[in-house]
Each structure stands twice: as structure tokens, then as C-alpha cells.
């Protein structure tokens, strides 16, 4: 047996791979579910916070800024561990899945609020004044004049952040979520062979590489004019 054969036998063992393929696939489903939940709820909450901030109610804005800063400062893994291992002391026991979802959604909320807010503030005051003077209400101005321009500006930084945070679904494995990495790790310890880990790695690339390539395209399409 050559070294190369031994290498493939160890890291790309066909028998082991066939056996654990269903586990990895079910892990992919969990990862996708988590990712979709995080993106939808995180971006929605971030936009709501940015809109609330546009109302310019002082104490409310301080609260929003504090919450945003908090979730930008804390490492996502610390938030996950805090929710999963900490909350049971208050008689709330969220599952690993819920802990991971909530944590990463909070993080995405914080980052996207900042980006949405920067987009909103980048619209010159004159536009607000012009549309208000034509008889549009505050809400109409925000929705019909400011947001369409602001959102376009936010797309490149938002895509990057969203990808970076969504990749964090792998952290769920620390609190026993059976997503890709969790499935792969337990398969490795059951089979005493690293092939499932290689499959898991491939699964992440299958999911995220197209998104990264698409993001590159979006970045050039919506790039800020220098």
C-alpha cells in the first residue's frame, strides 16, 4: 500500500462515507433551517430597530445603541453558552437549536441595525425636507423616499456580515445541535475515522461557496461609487 493509498483510505474512506452520508445530509438540513431562521429574524429585527431609531426618541435610542453595542462586543459563542447554560438557572431551558438561533439572530440584528442606520443617515436632510414639504407624512417619506436609496447602499456590507454570521451556525455543535459539524464530529468518534469530517467540510463548501461567489458579484454590482 502506497502512502497515497493509506491517505485516501484514512481521510476519504468510501465505506465510512457511504455509512455516514445520511447523517451529514440531515445535518445540512438543520444547518439550512438555522441559517434561514437567523437571516430572516436577524435582518428583520435589525431593520425594525433602525426604523425605531429614526423616530429620534432619546431614551429609546440610548437603549437601542446599548443593545447593539452589547451584541457587537460579545463573542457569539459566549452568547450561545450564556443562553444555553445560563438561562436554565432562571427556569427557562431553551434547546441548543433555539439558543444558537437566538444568539446569532441577536448578533445579526445588532450588526444589521448599524448598517441600516448608517444607510438611513446617509440620505441628505434636504430629501427629507423636500418630501415632507410636498405633503408626505414622516412614514411615507421614510418608506418611499429614504429607504429605497438607503437599502441599496447597505447591500454590500450587509451581504458580507450576513455570510460571516450565518457561518456561525457551526457553533451550535458546542451546545449539541445536530448540524453538519455536530453530525460529522459524532460520526468521527463512532467510526474512529476522519472521513465524515472531510464530508462535513465539503458540505459547508457546497452550502456557502455559491453564496460567497454570489456576494462577490453583488459587491461589484452595488459597489459604492468612489
Amino acid at each position: 500500500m502506497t502512502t497515497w493509498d493509506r491517505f485516501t483510505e484514512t481521510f476519504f474512506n468510501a465505506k465510512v462515507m457511504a455509512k455516514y452520508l445520511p447523517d451529514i445530509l440531515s445535518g445540512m438540513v438543520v444547518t439550512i433551517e438555522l441559517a434561514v431562521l437567523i437571516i430572516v429574524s436577524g435582518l428583520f429585527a435589525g431593520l425594525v430597530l433602525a426604523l425605531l431609531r429614526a423616530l429620534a426618541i432619546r431614551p429609546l435610542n440610548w437603549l437601542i445603541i446599548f443593545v447593539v453595542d452589547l451584541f457587537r462586543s460579545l463573542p457569539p459563542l459566549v452568547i450561545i453558552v450564556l443562553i444555553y447554560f445560563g438561562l436554565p438557572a432562571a427556569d427557562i431551558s431553551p434547546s441548543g437549536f433555539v439558543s444558537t438561533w437566538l444568539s446569532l439572530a441577536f448578533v445579526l440584528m445588532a450588526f444589521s441595525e448599524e448598517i441600516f442606520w448608517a444607510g438611513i443617515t446617509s440620505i441628505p436632510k434636504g430629501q427629507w425636507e423636500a418630501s415632507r414639504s410636498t405633503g408626505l407624512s414622516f412614514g411615507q417619506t421614510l418608506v418611499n423616499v429614504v429607504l429605497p436609496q438607503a437599502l441599496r447602499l447597505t447591500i454590500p456590507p450587509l451581504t458580507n456580515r450576513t455570510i460571516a454570521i450565518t457561518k456561525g451556525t457551526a457553533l451550535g455543535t458546542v451546545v449539541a445541535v445536530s448540524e453538519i459539524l455536530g453530525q460529522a464530529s459524532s460520526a468521527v468518534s463512532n467510526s474512529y475515522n476522519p472521513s465524515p469530517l472531510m464530508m462535513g467540510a465539503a458540505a459547508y463548501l457546497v452550502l456557502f461557496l455559491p453564496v460567497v461567489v454570489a456576494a462577490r458579484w453583488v459587491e461589484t454590482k452595488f459597489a459604492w461609487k468612489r
Partner: protein
Amino acid sequence: MIEAFFNPEIIAAIWPIVLAGLLNTVLLSLIVVPLGLLGGLILALLATVHHPLVRWPLMAWVDFFRAFPPLVLLVLLFAGLPFAGLELGGFACVAIAFFLNTGAYYGEILRAGIDSVPAGQVEAGRSTGLSRLQAMTYIVLPQAVRNVLPDLMSNTLEVVKLTSLGSVVAVPELLFQARQAQSLTYNATPIVLAAIIYFLMLWPLVRLLSRLENRALAGRR
């Protein structure tokens, strides 16, 4: 409530454990941030070679690490390499994973910085007799770094936060130590304490960044 989340007796008892973790987190950051910057600098300098044979593999390399979760990379090194007869230990795995992963991110930022310096600057420098390397070191890089400083700082914040992944491969940094203390005391206080420490340590940087970012986006119009 206070008993379960912020117990003064427990804080007094586990304080040294958590403090040791904090020191290790600072040390780890002082090692992995320069490592990532070094990796990024190598990639950004390679990107100045505008040959397709360099450009395409480089783009693939960067995209690969942007798509690959850092924790998966870390676990792959930590749990996979021993099967190839290579047992590196948690710390070395963290260092390698950060060099690769954060290097790709720093590389993209530095590349954008280098691109933002007009070509005339290099030409002017070269015409005064500077070599390519000298023009890069003394003319392009200082301006490039200044132009992307907010992005570099924001990425550094992410890198420091990412050191918490070390806890998964038993590197005794802040989160790992806090979880050890938690399992000793059966109480959530150590983790709350760790979270407060992370927040106090990184909040000033977050505040600063938020100001810089708002100004940058507003200035684009």
C-alpha cells in the same frame, strides 16, 4: 436571581480562574492578530501581481476561507490531523486556523487599501529611483493602511472575539476558564462574569468603530 447569575461569593471564589483566562485571551489575541495580518499582507502583496495564474488561485483561496466556518477549520485541524500522525495540540491548531482564516479577511481588506492608492503614486516613486519593494513599503502601504483603517480595526475586533473558539479545543482562554469554573460551582455566575469582561474590554473599540463607520457611509454620498 442574583444568587444564580451574579453570586458575590462565587465571584470571590472563582475570580483567579477567570482572571487567568482573561490573561490568556489577551496573550492569544496578541499572537493571532499579527499572524492574521501577516497572512493578509502576503495575500495582498500577491494580489498586486496581475497575472491570471496568480489572480484566480488567490481568489479561490480567499473565497474558500470566506465560505469555511472557522470552527470547522479548527476542528478539522484538531481532530483530523492526528489521523495523519500529526498531533499539534489546541494552541497550535488555533494559530494555524487563524493564520488561514483571518489572513483571508485581512488580505481582502489590505488588497482594497492597496487598490485605493492611485497608480501615479507608484510611478512617481519609481521614477525617483525607488525599487518596487521600496515604493510598496514607503509609499503605497502607509496610505493603503490609513485608507482602510476602520475595516482593519473592525476585523481585529472580530478576531479577538473569535479567540473564544479556543475553548472548543481546550485552550484555557476566558470562555474555557469560565466554563470550567461553571462546572465546578454549578452556577452561571462565571459565564456572566466572562461576558461582562468581554463587553468591558471590547466596548470602547465598538463605540469608536460605530462612529467611524457612520462617518464613512455618510461620506460616500
